[in-house]
């Protein structure tokens, strides 16, 4: 084929190819990682035994406060071990304890970890390591980067979001929590809501109104708020699943030094967008593995209706293509590159599949979904069915994601 050189045209989601990782590829990297796991005495998980053993397809972690704290402690210990051995933040530059590898390497390690008997990494870890650490790196002063980034990646510091408010949901820029300058400090007052696992965090990234006199997006400033300061009250909110991993966080004249302001005064909206883009990117793997569990269950039970078999295959197909698309997007994104609006695509695709998963399991289990027979792998699906609606709201509702995709990826006119 003779081709002449010329400009490279690409589709909507142009991404730069990652640089070739020096002397390594993903499979051999994973093998090396697993060799290390074995060398420190970790064990491979027994393959899922269909029909016996634990079964969970929960979307949210429904734990008591004590269980939640213990789970976080176990997770932190494991994250530190991993980070110290150089297996923690492999897609971060070396100065942060990483290896400067493309995101595919980090994703492959996360996938490999599922095969091993290791502490589960709950939502607070994703928020701390995948959302707030990149935000501090992007917006922090050199002192803040020094003070926080390695600590967040190593989970010495756990951090949650203080974003939404009772009157600022989809319209996040309408937040009312006030930040008033007072000498070397800022005084924060207001009410934050939907802050996942705030009770286990040491810091919260708070988006506050520092200037009510300018248009709403321009009057915001972000802070890293130590949650043990006087005036901070954290109260759990019980969700429709029955658990309470969300919280409302009251800030009553909380005095925060200016050194903990994140990004410029008035730049809070851009800081928030960095965190939200990272959140949406991270959300594309929501519900990972759930459809495979359904297929295994269907195989185990046997499905006689060809119509139902086809419903399951359609769901499997969408799930498989989403997993492959996530792999592709990770491979297309250069190491360390900030996720952009593309994250909204992954999140929306993932939440739509969660909804479809609920629909198909309803057809598969029928009565066994609504009343517990004690049979393995049946009634536990209510956790999926009751949890799925939450993620179609959290991190920006499906409708907000669609608007972002249309305006920021497709370039359609603003309304």
């Amino acid at each position, binding site marked *: 084929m003779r081709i002449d050189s010329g400009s490279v045209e690409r589709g909507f989601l142009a991404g730069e190819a990652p640089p070739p990782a020096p002397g390594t590829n993903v499979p051999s990297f994973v093998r090396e990682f697993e060799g290390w796991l074995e060398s420190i005495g970790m064990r491979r998980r027994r393959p899922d035994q269909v029909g016996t053993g634990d079964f969970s397809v929960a979307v949210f972690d429904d734990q008591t406060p004590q269980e939640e704290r213990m789970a976080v402690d176990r997770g932190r210990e494991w994250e530190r071990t991993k980070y110290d051995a150089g297996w923690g933040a492999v897609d971060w530059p070396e100065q942060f304890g990483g290896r400067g590898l493309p995101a595919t390497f980090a994703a492959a390690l996360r996938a490999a970890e599922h095969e091993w008997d290791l502490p589960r990494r709950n939502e607070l870890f994703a928020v701390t390591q995948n959302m707030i650490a990149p935000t501090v790196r992007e917006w922090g002063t050199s002192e803040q980067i020094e003070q926080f980034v390695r600590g967040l990646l190593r989970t010495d510091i756990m951090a949650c979001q203080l974003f939404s408010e009772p009157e600022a949901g989809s319209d996040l820029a309408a937040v009312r929590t006030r930040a008033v300058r007072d000498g070397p400090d800022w005084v924060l007052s207001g009410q934050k809501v939907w802050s996942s696992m705030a009770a286990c965090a040491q810091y919260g990234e708070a988006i506050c109104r520092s200037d009510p006199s300018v248009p709403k997006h321009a009057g915001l400033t972000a802070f890293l708020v130590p949650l043990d300061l006087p005036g901070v009250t954290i109260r759990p909110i019980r969700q429709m699943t029955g658990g309470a991993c969300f919280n409302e966080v009251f800030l009553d004249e909380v005095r925060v030094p200016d050194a903990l302001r994140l990004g410029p005064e008035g730049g809070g909206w851009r800081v928030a967008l960095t965190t939200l883009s990272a959140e949406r990117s991270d959300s594309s793997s929501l519900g990972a593995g759930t459809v495979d569990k359904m297929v295994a269950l269907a195989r185990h039970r046997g499905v006689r209706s060809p119509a139902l078999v086809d419903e399951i295959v359609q769901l499997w197909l969408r799930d498989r293509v989403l997993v492959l698309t996530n792999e592709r997007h990770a491979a297309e994104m250069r190491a360390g590159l900030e996720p952009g609006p593309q994250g909204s*695509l992954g999140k929306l695709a993932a939440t739509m599949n969660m909804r479809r998963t609920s629909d198909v399991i309803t057809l598969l289990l029928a009565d066994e979904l609504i009343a517990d027979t004690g049979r393995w792998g049946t009634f536990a699906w209510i956790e999926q069915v009751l949890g799925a609606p939450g993620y179609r709201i959290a991190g920006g509702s499906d409708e907000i994601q669609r608007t972002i*995709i249309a305006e920021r990826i497709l370039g359609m006119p603003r309304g």
Partner: protein
Amino acid sequence: MADLVESPEQAELRATLRRLFGGRSACLARQALEGDGHYDAALWATLTQKLGLAGLSLPERYGGSGYSRADRAAALHEMGRCLLPSPFLASVVLAAETLLATGDEDVLAEVLPGLSAGTTLATVAYREGPGYDCPPVRAARDRTDWRLTGCRSFVLDGCQADLIIVPAETAETESGVSLFLIDVAAAPGLSRRAMRTLDSSRPQALLDFSATPARLVGDPGAGAVAVRKGVAHTTIALAAEQAGGAERCLEAAVEYAGTRQQFGRPIGSFQAIKHKCADLLIQVESARTAARYAASVSSDPAIDEDLYAAAALAGAYCSAAFFTVAAENIQIHGGIGFTWEHDAHLYFRRAKASEVMFGTPLEHRAFLARHLGLSA
């Protein structure tokens, strides 16, 4: 592990083809619709002689350039974007892949150089015709030669092909279906009739064989396997085309929605339109992934994934996605999109034809159900 990322060379190949096609191919698809359904011979000559497109991924020892099937998929993506009417799919994908699957060195050495050069066109007549007036094809030995009798329909490029590959049962062996090659230039008893088609840029024909001389290709009884493999590769190639077509339809819809004014503002500023386009982008992105995944699996035998499952995955997903986007493109355009003059229906026709040509989405999913162990 499948390679899902486009290489710089593939991007460059696409850019070259896009410049070359420059938007005129949708016009060619229109010409096909209003004309005789034949391809533009001058464009095919340019593509094959100047660019070497036909031989792109055929082996070098048979006159090809030896690029991978993933590279071929990149070219197909661009052909799909502009609905290029060409013998590419039938001749250098379906027919060449079926022949390659037989491993018949003599036939390959004789036939493939012509297909690579684009000077000979071939197809595979494998679909049984519907109804009682179209009897299945039987092969009978006539001394050293074989003669075929029967009928085949839905033969892609059946009236244009110089060589026709026909799987047929032989009277004398119990070994099943064997593969035969008919040279149209020396084929008494062959009659060909163009079928009216939904997508005129992709002609189909009804072929009637009456003691038509044919040559055995490959081992007796090995025909069904070769055709199955050829069709799987074609499904994967078509998926790349479908992903390209879907991408172009969404671009057209977004462009139009950005300029068409109603209620004093562009219709693309309404959430109803925006949200529809956002959902379509997920399908376009996913179709791209599915097509690339399957192309990668078909390119590299070292990838431990089933070729047929990859074909079914790509076929099921990309068929549905292309049709959805092509159909919604018309809705977003409104009245103008429903007119004969607008290109939207050309994409709609291609999408609908592609949806069923090498197996419907339901058939692909039925295969996947067996592959997943969900049905027997």
